[in-house]
């Protein structure tokens, strides 16, 4: 709701955005959220608020890819998020202040905005040896996370690492890394899985929160259903080729040039849920399968261990007419991919691959100088 005495149009004008831009942006967000237009007025009013909600963004065992992904956000423009939608008060990679000044900014939010602010977490949290594998300002990541997430209205875990430990947790998990919901139990966490998270989804989540003061419907992994409720394979632009039995069998072959199905090259689309094929990336420019490479199921639980080797074929992909719902996926997936699959599921129903060319002679051992 607007503050008493303030006018939405004036407030927008002061912030350099027109009402038309705001409405357009809110419509796009509602579409991503699969919400009807009747919520538009409410959304516009919430987003146009004079007093902005506070957000802090924490980075732990991360690669900063999820921060970068947020900077690639096209709707809304990232500048609009930073300057207009939320008061983004702590984010190491882009904030103005360093050291004590930065730490004080975070302390202020935790103390003065207690229970009202949002916190985004990027990166895993190392739990081994008292947490010494990640310290900021002399404090451990887990110590900071307990305090900052514990005092927040809600926590948003962006990316695979904050979701479930991601790559950092992959075997042998050298630092005892965990995702936020395991490292800081009891905190309300929404998981925006993906490597990185898709900024269109995270923006939509933020808009939903600003409008309805609650998070959207979540799946069993606390991922919003609007983004993680459907299987990639079912939304894939190459699905017709799968159904017709047209497969890429070697990188660069005729099928690869013609955009055929990548299942035989190890694509994990049939076991992965994400709206990647629909929202795509970088202002709807493309997505990995469009770039000719199989899906690695980067929004799926523990995908680094469960979905690799990434070039091995999935063993149990059902053929035609077999219904699999997104919620059934991920059950018993540990070690689902196996080497040398020959006689499971789809493998029986697809055309045999042409005989491979004889392998070349192995290279001779080199005597290199290093």
């Amino acid at each position, binding site marked *: 709701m607007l503050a008493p005495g303030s006018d939405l149009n004036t407030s927008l004008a002061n912030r350099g955005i027109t009402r038309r831009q705001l409405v357009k942006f809110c419509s796009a967000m509602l579409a991503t959220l699969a919400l009807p237009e009747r919520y538009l007025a409410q959304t516009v009013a919430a987003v146009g608020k004079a007093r902005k909600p506070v957000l802090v963004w924490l980075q732990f065992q991360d690669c900063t890819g999820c921060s970068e992904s947020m900077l690639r956000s096209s709707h809304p*423009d*990232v500048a609009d998020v930073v300057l207009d939608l939320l008061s983004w008060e702590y984010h190491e990679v882009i*904030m103005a202040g360093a050291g004590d000044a930065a730490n004080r900014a975070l302390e202020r939010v935790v103390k003065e905005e207690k229970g009202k602010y949002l916190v985004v977490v990027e990166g895993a949290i190392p739990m081994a040896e008292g947490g010494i594998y990640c310290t900021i300002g002399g404090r451990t990541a887990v110590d900071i996370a307990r305090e900052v997430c514990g005092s927040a209205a809600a926590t948003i875990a962006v990316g695979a690492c904050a979701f479930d430990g991601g790559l950092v947790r992959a075997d042998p998990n050298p630092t005892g890394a965990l995702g936020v919901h395991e490292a800081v139990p009891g905190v309300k966490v929404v998981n925006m899985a993906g*490597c990185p998270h898709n900024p269109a989804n995270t923006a939509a989540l933020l808009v939903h929160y600003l409008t309805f003061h609650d998070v959207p419907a979540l799946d069993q992994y606390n991922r919003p259903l609007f983004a993680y409720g459907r299987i990639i394979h079912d939304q894939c632009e190459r699905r017709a080729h799968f159904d017709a039995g047209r497969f890429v069998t070697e990188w660069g072959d005729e099928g690869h040039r013609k955009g055929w199905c990548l299942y035989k090259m190890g694509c994990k689309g049939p076991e992965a849920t994400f709206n990647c094929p629909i929202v795509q990336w970088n202002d709807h420019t*493309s997505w990995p399968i469009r770039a000719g490479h199989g899906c690695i199921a980067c929004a799926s639980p523990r995908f680094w261990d469960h979905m690799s*080797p990434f070039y091995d074929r999935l063993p149990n992909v059902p053929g035609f007419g077999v219904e699999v719902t997104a919620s059934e996926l991920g059950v018993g997936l540990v070690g689902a991919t196996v080497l040398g699959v020959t006689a499971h599921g789809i493998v029986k129903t697809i055309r045999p691959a042409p005989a491979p060319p004889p392998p070349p002679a192995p290279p001779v051992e080199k005597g290199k100088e*290093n």
Partner: protein
Amino acid sequence: MARIVVDPVNRIEGHLRIEAQLDGGKLTDAWSSGTMFRGIEMILKGRDPREAWIWTQRICGVCTMVHAIASVRAVEDALQIEVPDNARIVRNLIAGSQMVQDHVIHFYHLHALDWVDVAAALKADPVKTSSLAQSISNCEKSSATYFKGVQQRVKAVVDSGQLSLFASGYWGHPAYILPPEANLLAVAHYLEALAWQKDFIRIHAVLGGKNPHPQSFLVGGMSTAMDPNEPAAVINPERIDLLRDLVAGAKKFVNDYYIPDVLAIAPFYKDWFTRGEGLGNFLSYGDYSSGDQKDPKTFLFPRGIVMGRDISKVFPVDPAKITESVAHSWYEYAGGDASGLHPSVGETKPKYSGPKPPYDHLDVEAKYSWLKTPRYDGKPMEVGPLARMVVGYAAGKPEIKAAVDGALKALNAPATVLFSTLGRIAARALECQLMAAQLPGWVDELDSNLAHGKTDIFNPVRWDPGSWPASASGYGWHEAPRGALGHWVEIKGRSIENYQAVVPTTWNAGPRDAQGQRGAYEAALVNTPVVDPGRPLEILRTIHSFDPCIACAVHTVDAQGREYTIPRIP
């Protein structure tokens, strides 16, 4: 005497801590500490080397893809795979566009706020700002109305009392000396660059499906299938047109915004042409081949070494002289922590011996960082854009010489100013301009190959692990935006036996060695004046001029403390 601590160092990738000793208004010593690691090299052990790039790419999401290209090169070297020419071109385009975008983001979003006072922009006269903009550049957005709009937008944020990311800046610090109009200009361009970077990097989506972490590398080539007549092909004439538009836009942005802004701001800060030099030793592996990736003579950025700021000599790079030691790092070596080990025979046995958190100070006399200490022939080296420009200049590479001489002339300064904080900023801008000028040529090459039916993008000879030798080893180098990057891989059977990455920021940000020689960051901070110890803006200026990437810089770890030695005969 006062100890200054900056932790976190903001506007960088990763977790960096600087401790420095202040004496008589100047820094007399400094210590650089990386405070986070993950253990990616250890996690790679036993996995399929063909997918190592997918994992190593996640070492960093800022300079995304640099660890992918180094990884596929290392595995291709081990398995002796030649990649098709189209794969070389697509890789150059992906890496080159990464460099252009990364450098622009660094200047405007990671570094500018060390030189630009956002609050002072409110005092600017939009008409005078417009005149300033039009005097330095041809860019279209330069009217007084435009600058007034930006100013109002900033004012609305300030008036709201919610300063967002700008809340914690050192505004009003006496070291900010730009006139208000230059501040307003820079703030406007900060916002323009924010909008531009996300548009331009769609080139990674075209050629890799997404950014960050494009997904189109393959050991043996690229997944970007080419076909002149196929709408579903990743590269077809329609996509070539899009690539052409994107690279043209990049060239324009760099020429209209980045270069003029650097040249306009630098003269106000001439003191920084004599501060922050550091080591004076420079290493470049060289990269961006016009033909044979194995032949450094074909590189846009030459391979070589310059020692002691002597640009009359360029020494060759001998891979055998690269070592890492752990005298001041939280690891142990079997043969003594002071010994330098080549990456191919590296050991990793982590042993945290720092203070128990929460702590106020590190024990800098002992071990104080998760970064190791790389050395070349026992000497500390600086890597990065300045190293590439110095080596290229010293080697007489015509494009680099012309660019550097042109900038020196515009700034009316001798070549020695390169060895400084501001020199690093200038070198990065020039390199960005050189790379932006290079991109359209690679699109043309791709277009020509497509038009002539030359569509090979992948070499299948060794895709099948059955075709591999029992064991193999190799290394792959890349000149990433932040400098010389090397991956070393050992393959046994079908899996990775060992993996080591020696990374640009490890060279620059590593702690001192057993002989007490400082790393590049540490050396560059010594003698820097600091006006206000509570707001050490000067430390940020020099550290940010290196463009730190700490997630990249931290090495393997094995929490069980197992010794990890590579049985390899050099």
